[in-house]
């Protein structure tokens, strides 16, 4: 099926590790910043049209068109206030205080890990929509080890993480295996396995061994203290692990044989096969690594934040991971930056709801728009070009000139 995005579709430059010219990244950075600005603009528009004061002023304007200037002025004023309130609350909620910053980092870490899982699969030409399911089974496994077995402190943590990683890797590897042996398209199998994972988790949550004492609710006990990440200054040590994971993914992609193979297979599976590479091995390995990273994301939540496992425990991290990887152009560094941005938006969204009364779903809209605009650089540049044309009429676009 031809519905797989080619890595080139999202990776701007697939040239290898050797010194990259900094200037080659400038257009990418510019397009990304433009996309973010554009998405925030649309978000601001949504804030304005749903602000009651603005709506009232607008009603008055319609009712008394004679006082057009007065009410138009009101509209502008209230709009500016509403947007300022919302976005300043957003910034404060994300980075305005110690706890805010902590929340941002806590939310970024799983996004980065799962985002890396999506990104590395991208580079092998696979669109991994399955981070959600991989994280969910990872959460269940890590949680189960975390609350069931009573082991010494360090060992217990390692065992719980290992269980989470293994479960995620299994769930991801399954996709690679299906792809390699039967050609089953990963977009379909990952979507389906996300749902299967949800029901598998629900199935287990209904079992007594997975429930709190004297409770029939579908929720597990939280992991024991011996199985949770130690904290330093309020931050749990899973967070630096996300950065380590990014470094590991960079090494695999740019410095290892496996990375060479997976990039080759992603760009041209037929030529790779002819060159003696095993696409079977690559598909299984890369999806197992992707699942492992999603499992790590789940560990961040369950073991890092002492969460009980439910079918909602990982939230929508798997889907957000897709947007993080797309925004990060499927590169490790880009994914870390995108993960931090989305973590900040997510944490800030809470602040926005608390102090400005703007629903946190606005963040979801903005995130979707950012990725949409990032994926359509030509559209974003069109916006940029309108402005440029006013000042300079000379710039001639030569994109796509090579036939």
């Amino acid at each position, binding site marked *: 099926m031809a519905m797989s995005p080619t*890595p080139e579709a999202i990776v701007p430059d697939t040239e290898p590790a050797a010194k990259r010219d900094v200037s080659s990244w400038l257009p990418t950075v510019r397009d990304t910043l433009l996309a973010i600005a554009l998405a925030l603009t649309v978000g601001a528009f949504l804030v304005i049209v749903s602000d009651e004061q603005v709506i009232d002023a607008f009603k008055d304007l319609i009712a008394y068109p004679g006082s057009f200037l007065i009410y138009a002025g009101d509209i502008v004023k209230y709009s500016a206030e509403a947007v300022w309130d919302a976005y300043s609350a957003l910034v404060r909620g994300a980075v305005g205080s110690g706890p805010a910053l902590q929340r941002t980092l806590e939310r970024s870490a799983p996004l980065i890990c799962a985002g890396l899982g999506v990104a590395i699969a991208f580079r092998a030409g696979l669109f991994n929509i399955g981070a959600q399911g991989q994280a969910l089974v990872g959460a269940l496994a890590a949680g189960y080890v975390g609350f069931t077995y009573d082991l010494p402190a360090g060992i217990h943590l390692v065992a719980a993480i290992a269980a989470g990683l293994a479960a995620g890797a299994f769930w991801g590897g399954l996709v690679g295996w299906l792809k390699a042996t039967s050609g089953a398209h990963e977009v379909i199998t990952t979507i389906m396995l996300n749902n299967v994972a949800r029901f598998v988790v629900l199935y287990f949550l209904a079992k007594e061994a997975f429930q709190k004492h004297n409770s029939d609710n579908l929720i597990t006990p939280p992991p024991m203290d011996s199985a949770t990440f130690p904290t330093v200054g309020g931050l749990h040590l899973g967070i630096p692990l996300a950065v380590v994971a990014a470094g590991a993914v960079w090494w695999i992609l740019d410095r290892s*044989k496996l990375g060479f193979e997976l990039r*080759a297979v992603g*760009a041209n599976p037929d*030529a790779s096969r002819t*060159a*003696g590479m*095993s696409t079977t091995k690559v598909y299984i390995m890369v999806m197992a690594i992707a699942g492992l990273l999603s499992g790590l994301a789940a560990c961040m939540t369950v073991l890092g934040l002492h969460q009980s496992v439910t079918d909602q425990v990982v939230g929508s991290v798997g889907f957000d991971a897709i947007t993080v990887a797309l925004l990060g152009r499927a590169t490790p560094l880009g994914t870390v930056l995108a993960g931090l941005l989305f973590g900040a938006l997510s944490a800030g969204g809470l602040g926005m709801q608390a102090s400005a009364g703007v629903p946190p779903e606005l963040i979801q809209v903005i995130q979707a728009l950012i990725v949409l605009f990032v994926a359509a650089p030509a559209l974003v540049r069109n916006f940029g070009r309108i402005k440029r044309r006013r000042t300079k009429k000379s710039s001639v676009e030569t994109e796509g000139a*090579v036939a």
Partner: protein
Amino acid sequence: MRLEIKGLTKRFGSFTANDQIDLVIEPGEIHCLLGENGAGKSTLMNMLYGLLTPTEGEILLDGAPTDFQGPGDALAAGIGMVHQHFMLVPVFTVAENVMLGHEKTRGAGILNREAARKQVRELSERYQLHVDPDALIEDIPVGVQQRVEIIKALAGNAKILILDEPTAVLTPQEIDELMGIMRELKAQGTSIIFITHKLREVKAVGDKITVIRRGKVVGTAPPTASEAELAEMMVGRSVELAVSKENKIGGDAVLRASNITVVDPRGHLVVKDVSFEVRGGEVLGIAGVQGNGQTELIKSLLGLVKPDAGKIELEGKDISRHGPRQSLAEGIGYVPEDRSHDGYVGSFSVRENLVLDLYRTKEFSAGPALKLDAITANAKHRIEEFDIRTETPETPVASLSGGNQQKVVIAREFSRPLKVLIASQPTRGVDVGSIEFIHKRIIRERDQGTAVLIVSTELDEIYALSDRIAVMYDGRIVATVSPDTPREQLGLLMAGATPEVSA
């Protein structure tokens, strides 16, 4: 209808594909357009057919200037085109393909398939094309598909028919048939623009010949011009088509295939009980028209597909169950038929492509890590040795010219000791300079004692390189002959005549 092209120019960015082309096609003539690959013939025709918009110049039909916004306009004006890669929907029937774009309906947009069938039958009878309107395109041979393309054009009342490299996929017999059809069309008043790079065909059927080189018209010639004259106009210098080499009798058999049979994924038998051997220090050329099982045969030799029956031996060792990784490691060099598909990774740099199947050797890796310095040093060395024209080793291979892309593949495969070299269409879509270079390297490899197997659909190449020639037809090797066998006889074998008949 008289077609006149005046000062037609097409630029892509800074690249000029067509430069001030002038051309006149008189009604009822067969006008040949001769030129090398990449000379700009197809660009010119795509402008004529409305697929590309000219940068400058104009196209006049019976003296009136045209302004084609798309192929629809060209069709309406009476220009039909048979593309090199057929523009047929494989899962549609012949009739559906012919009606597409100007469908007759029974009102309310409901298709009138019966009318389309009738039209196909009528045209098929009138021009002796023998096409079944209800056959699915994917089920009929390429020769018939091409006739469907011609019917498509005629159904649109084409007065001028463009045939873009129509003979590349045909057997000599089918080429003769096509020429008959062209003469028939001409007799009924249709003008034909016949694009090709094959001199023989031009001389056989053309009324007038225009030669194009590097986007410019370099001259016209009557069909009585000699092949050497035409070749010189086409290439721009006198061409030595033959590689100077001595024919040799090889040593011991290095590669031996016995009773190879391959079934393709659709369940068709594509290689039928093929046996042959290649000796050290000889070139065995496999001649045949595209699609007679050569592709699957060499894929099975490397292990890309497993033969369903038979045995492959390398120096007496059974490698039938080997995959490509083992076969490459055993000393088989492999130049695939379609380099962009199987030969290189387009978005990878020259540097990376030069180790595409070597990165896992000790030379270029240690444990799980790559030795980047060694890979870079290798690239510098190979680029020099094989004269690969690239700006830097970091340039993606996709942006090189066809000849240099092929040199990347050749350089990689030749950069390790080989027992067997398998090369399929080693010079397809490659400029003349690179052809000479690649041919010389292949012969040098042979002289070092390597067993060489060449698959080519170009008889010139087969004659230039082979010490023995095996002819494949319909999945079988129908004969193995010496390279002094006359061309006509080889042509008959390629068309499936049994050796007894042709002898």
